[in-house]
């Protein structure tokens, strides 16, 4: 049986771990809220942009625009959105697992990777996948410029003909307790054909040029959405993981305390036995 001092030390260390995990839980909770708020704020812009695109698209010949081109798929690019930090349950390992499986199904030598977040980068770098770009260390200070930068490089990679399709794998934020890994095709853009009546209005410079600059903006906002979804999911996953860790630490403290009390009681009993038997010996 462990000595009293050992048990006391362990209780102390578990208690301090519990403090850390519960603090991390609080921080994660605050960050989820912030991410959700940003998602709310981005919604009007997304909707308005989509509406404008839908208004113009019926009058556009899709073959004219690189980003709407549908080519034979020889090479693909994957954008993998992970986190910079661990301690978020299986958040990072799940996404890299799904991504790796999809990539290998297509053939890893024909896949270019855009890694977002340190965890994905490290994972695929170690296994020597073909990483084109990685973006890390911006989550704490997440702003729209990050999305624009990532969006631009993805568009360049696609329009220069290096890949014929771009996929995104990210965590979709369902609710606080649930995140879902989604794999979506980002490029070439596919829109459902909806009928809109053509209105009499002014298009400047021209409809084609308008769509040409609308679509990249639309992609940027998509990337922004992926970043926010993933960030919210990461923090929610961390919150849950830390909540569990805190409860587990509590259980551990309870059982250690019990053990401590037992050991203490045993020590007292032994001591009393010694005194009694000592006294007995004197009486004889």
């Amino acid at each position, binding site marked *: 049986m462990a000595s009293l001092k050992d048990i006391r030390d362990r209780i102390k260390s578990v208690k301090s771990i519990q403090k850390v995990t519960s603090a991390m839980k609080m921080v994660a909770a605050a960050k989820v809220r912030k991410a959700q708020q940003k998602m709310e704020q981005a919604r009007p812009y997304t909707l308005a942009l989509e509406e404008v695109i839908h208004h113009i698209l019926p009058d556009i010949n899709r073959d004219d625009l690189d980003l709407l081109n549908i080519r034979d798929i020889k090479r693909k690019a994957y954008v993998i959105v992970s986190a910079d930090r661990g301690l978020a349950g299986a958040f990072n390992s799940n996404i890299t697992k799904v991504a790796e499986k999809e990539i290998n199904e297509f053939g890893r030598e024909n896949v270019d990777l855009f890694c977002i977040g340190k965890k994905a980068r490290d994972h695929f770098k170690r296994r020597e996948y073909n990483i084109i770009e990685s973006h890390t260390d911006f989550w704490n200070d997440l702003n*729209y410029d990050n999305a624009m930068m990532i969006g631009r490089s993805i568009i360049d990679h696609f329009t220069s003909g290096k890949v014929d399709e771009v996929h995104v794998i990210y965590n979709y934020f369902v609710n606080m307790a649930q995140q879902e890994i989604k794999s979506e095709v980002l490029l070439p853009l596919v829109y459902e054909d909806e009928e809109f009546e053509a209105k009499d*209005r002014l298009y400047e410079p021209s409809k084609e040029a308008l769509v040409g600059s609308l679509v990249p903006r639309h992609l940027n906002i998509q990337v922004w959405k992926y970043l926010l979804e993933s960030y919210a999911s990461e923090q929610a996953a961390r919150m849950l993981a830390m909540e569990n860790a805190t409860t587990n630490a509590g259980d551990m403290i309870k059982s250690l305390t019990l053990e401590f009390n037992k050991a203490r009681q045993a020590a007292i009993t032994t001591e009393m036995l010694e005194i009694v038997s000592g006294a007995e010996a004197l009486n004889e």
Partner: protein
Amino acid sequence: MGVFSVEIVTPIKVFNEDTVKYLRCPGIDGSFGVMKKHRNGIIALDIGELKIETKNGIEWYATSGGFVEITDDKVELLLESIEKSNEIDVKRASEALERAKQRRADNKEDIDSVRLEASLSRAINRLNVSNK
């Protein structure tokens, strides 16, 4: 002079100006003005300055481009970024300008000239507007 409402929508915020008398936008093919009863249309905007004249005076903004959609009942500006003249971080803008100039001076081969020119003009624009 009639007034109309302008809605400014960006990925991070949305706000309204309800009593706009005159709006000047940096179109791709040059600046243009919008007043009440402008013809409906969608016009692409470049990096530049936005001038909004409301009942309460004139306000200047720097934008990095986007679109304006003009309909009968309102004017909607879809912009990737917008900064009011007095909210521009002059220090950051001048730093960005210096960086871009430096990169142009280095003149490396792999440089992305389109992106460089864009960041140059964004920085210059922000500095210009901050002086309004």
